């Protein structure tokens, strides 16, 4: 790399890789992300792909995208609009041109811009003109063609050769942002260990792409300096992996075995997959025959003394409803993860949304209170999976952990915690020799004890029928009222064991932005930028939904205006209206299967700041 003289410094850049869903764009994007991370940048990524595994080639519906935001300081969103777009075919350009910043750079595979492909993508003739992209910096590289030429003597078949073209695009982008190729090289070497010919071909194309960019010198080369981040050992992590590991950590801290009963469902499936790899840590994964069996087997495992969890997404949570009700009634520890996606019904399986909040809170028969918490960044899914387990075990209660498609597949660097810094978990296990009354409660927490089968002398029967304190079935009217109120109050008292709500941004502002769950990065960025621009605004972001933090009313009362921003039609706003009727809530709701953009959030904030 001897071209340093021409390198301009940049604070951050957003790059979007896009192509057919078979073009390897997810891999290309994550390889570039890893490369950036290893060079010291901070990053956030956002994969955006269709539900179809291989949608019809060349159609807009089949476009798969991967966006990465890299910076020389801390970043918390994947960026609204891209500075650089890689479009492997006309459909990718068609689908993504609107996500490009004015004047940004577009890298296209010129070879794939044939008349047929252009028509297929819905253009007439000239995509650049039709999408009014003339003012953009366009690098028209014959990617497929050069890839073919490069590998002409490789002896590989045509299909395999063309599969390497994504490495050419990666090579170009690496050159553009002054990144070395060694991370990608190492990855390929590992992935195709047994296929040296494939490794060689990919490496060759990668290098060719890099050299191509250097040769044409089409645009200025940029450098993004390493970010100043806290010292420590880091790794890249996505929300689903962080969730999985949070549970394993909780099991270790509770000295229990981890049981996972799940049924595959997008976008939650990875959690079952990740956990099924962890036999080495004794994780028992049970791929059930359906969502109902998944939750029920977890309830059985919980009854038998494991830390039991089940993972799903919206439609699966609907099927688990009756089972969760049983866990509420039996007062057994259980964690249910809902990786929210666009709904209702099959909805938008691969897209993000926050529309299962009411289902989590209220989607069961009878008065059926449980704890609901929500993670807010990909990496803190670890902490909230841990926390969900801790609450479930220590309070003998089902906990629903809400994440979403954006958190699940988004990645960010994560400072690896040390297990010695995590709190111990103390489940209230009844011991041999003590007198056991199944529904006798701790005075302070109202938590009953957990008598695990196999323990001598503690035989008892649980069930879905209403019981009195001794565990005997009871149809006594007053007993049902008492037990219903106790179950409700037990969940409420969890508020004494969760942190208070924080105010971020300007505490003296008149306007409070309220959010919950996976929108945190976008909301905080918007709030920070507005404050930087001279206006005052604050943010209260919720991770604990039921019970709410104790100081919630206090926080809300400090502001003249409150706007609740969420990716649904106003569920959290309505929840707050029920809980705290004394305040007025404005709403900003988006329901497109996409995260917020910082731009639209700021627009709404400014609108509220202006009309006084």
């Amino acid at each position, binding site marked *: 790399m001897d071209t340093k003289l021409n390198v301009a410094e940049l604070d951050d850049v957003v790059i979007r890789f896009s192509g057919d869903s078979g073009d390897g764009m997810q891999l290309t994007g994550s390889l570039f992300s890893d490369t950036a991370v290893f060079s010291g940048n901070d990053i956030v990524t956002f994969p955006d792909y269709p539900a179809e595994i291989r949608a019809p080639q060349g159609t807009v519906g089949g476009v798969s995208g991967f966006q990465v935001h890299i910076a020389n300081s801390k970043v918390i969103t994947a960026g609204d609009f891209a500075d650089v777009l890689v479009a492997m075919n006309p459909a990718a350009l068609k689908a993504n041109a609107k996500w490009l910043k004015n004047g940004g750079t577009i890298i296209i595979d010129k070879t794939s811009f044939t008349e047929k492909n252009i028509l297929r993508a819905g253009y007439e003739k000239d995509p650049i003109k039709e999408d009014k992209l003339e003012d953009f910096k366009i690098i028209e590289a014959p990617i497929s063609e050069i890839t073919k030429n490069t590998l002409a003597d490789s002896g590989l078949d045509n299909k395999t050769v063309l599969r390497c073209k994504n490495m050419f695009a990666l090579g170009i982008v690496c050159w553009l942002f002054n990144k070395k190729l060694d991370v990608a090289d190492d990855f390929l070497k590992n992935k195709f260990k047994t296929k040296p010919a494939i490794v060689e071909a990919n490496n060759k194309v990668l290098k060719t792409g890099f050299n191509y960019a250097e040769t044409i010198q089409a645009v200025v080369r940029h450098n993004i300096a390493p970010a100043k981040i806290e010292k420590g050992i*880091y790794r890249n992590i996505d929300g689903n992996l962080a969730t999985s590991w949070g549970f394993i950590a909780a099991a270790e801290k509770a000295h229990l075995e981890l049981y996972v009963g799940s049924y595959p469902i997008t976008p939650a499936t990875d959690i079952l997959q990740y956990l099924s790899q962890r036999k080495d840590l004794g994780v028992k994964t049970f791929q059930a025959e359906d969502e109902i069996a998944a939750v029920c087997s977890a309830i059985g495992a919980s*009854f038998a003394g494991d830390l039991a969890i089940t993972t799903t997404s919206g439609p699966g949570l609907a099927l688990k409803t009756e089972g969760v009700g049983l866990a509420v009634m039996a007062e057994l520890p259980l964690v249910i993860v809902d990786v929210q996606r666009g709904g209702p019904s099959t909805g938008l399986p691969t897209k993000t949304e926050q529309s299962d909040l009411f289902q989590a809170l209220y989607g069961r028969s009878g008065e059926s209170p449980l704890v609901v918490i929500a993670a807010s960044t990909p990496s803190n899914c670890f902490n909230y999976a841990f926390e969900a387990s801790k609450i479930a075990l220590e309070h003998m209660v089902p906990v629903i952990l809400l994440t979403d498609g954006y958190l699940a597949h988004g990645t960010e660097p994560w400072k690896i915690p040390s297990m010695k810094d995590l709190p111990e978990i103390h489940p209230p296990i009844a011991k041999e020799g003590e007198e056991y009354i199944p529904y006798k409660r701790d005075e302070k927490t109202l938590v009953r004890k957990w008598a695990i089968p196999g323990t001598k002398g503690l035989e008892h029967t649980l069930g879905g029928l209403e019981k009195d304190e001794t565990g005997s079935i009871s149809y006594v009217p007053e007993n049902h009222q008492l037990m219903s109120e106790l179950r409700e109050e037990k969940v409420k008292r969890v508020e004494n064991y969760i942190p208070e709500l924080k105010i971020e941004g300007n505490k003296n502002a008149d306007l409070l932005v309220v959010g919950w769950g996976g929108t945190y990065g976008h909301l905080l960025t918007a709030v920070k930028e507005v404050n930087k621009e001279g206006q005052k605004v604050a943010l209260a972001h919720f991770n604990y939904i039921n019970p709410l933090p104790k100081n919630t009313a206090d926080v809300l009362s400090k502001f003249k205006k409150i706007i609740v921003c969420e990716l649904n039609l106003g569920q959290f706003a309505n929840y707050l209206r029920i809980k705290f009727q004394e305040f007025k809530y404005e709403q900003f709701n988006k329901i497109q299967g996409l995260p917020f953009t910082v731009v639209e959030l700021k627009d709404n904030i400014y609108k509220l700041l202006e009309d006084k």
Partner: protein
Amino acid sequence: MADNQTKLTFKDFKSKGEVKWCPGCGDHAILVSVQKAMADMNYKHEKFVSISGIGCSSRFPYYVNTYGFHTIHGRAGAIASGAKVANPRLSVWQITGDGDSLAIGGNHFIHEIRRNMDVCLIMFNNQIYGLTKGQYSPTSPKGKISVTSPFGSVERPFQTGALVIGARGTFFARSMDNKVNLTAEVLEEAAKHDGASVVEVLQNCVIYNNGAHSYFSDKEHKEDRQIILHDGEPLIFGKENDKGLIMEDSKLKVVKIGENGITIDNILVHNSGLDYSGIHLMLATMEPPFPIALGVIRNVDLETYANELAQQIKDVQSESKIKCVDDLLHSGQTWEVK
């Protein structure tokens, strides 16, 4: 299987609570058979777990003194599976009915069997929904008049044994509620068998389906209408023990010993341990004019789910470098910021 120890009697499994089944219900007799079978198993009392779904039979956990879980309709199989996987040392008994396990819980039923979960599953088959007061069930015969089939059911019933064998079951036995000793005997075999042991007990609902099984249990004719299977013994039955089963044209046939040159040597000999399930299927699905088969029809050895999983965990643990969560968190690509 479960750890063994201490001599218990059936009284140790009697619950303090009042048994609230209808007087004359076949369930009472089955309860005694189960308590006897449990006592005879030589396991520690605290290792027993009874798990049920919903229905008359599913009240069972309240009436037997073990760890118990009376769960939700149809799901006992899934809950029992989770409990067994969580702690393979437990002796898990699942109590269910024809509605609970073959209608609403049909999916869990077949998959629990397919996985060979080491659970002793007792299915009370009274061919009716008792707890909801008399609707036809998936085992009610076609034409059954009930409150939801006032003109006769137009549905064909399941044959429990065919379903079990179709799901690649390793153990299937059948008994009748009034045969307390036979029930206890097959339950003991079921409990000894490692894997999903399904015992179908033909049970009489005195209120909503009285006499559903009377064709087979009828005092006058029962010897001619029942065949009790014993391993290694010829398949003979009848008041005079002179009838037997042979195979002809790939089908079972009832013959009379002494007629047409048939001798005892021509009669099929029962082998519940045959890997091949064809003959077991034929026996399990015999309907009049054939006798109904009682006793252990199929009993083959196969590794159980929980044991295979436990072994897999052991194997992976011995190979893996990841021994604790700290190891896991630092596995794969990491980098240090100084």
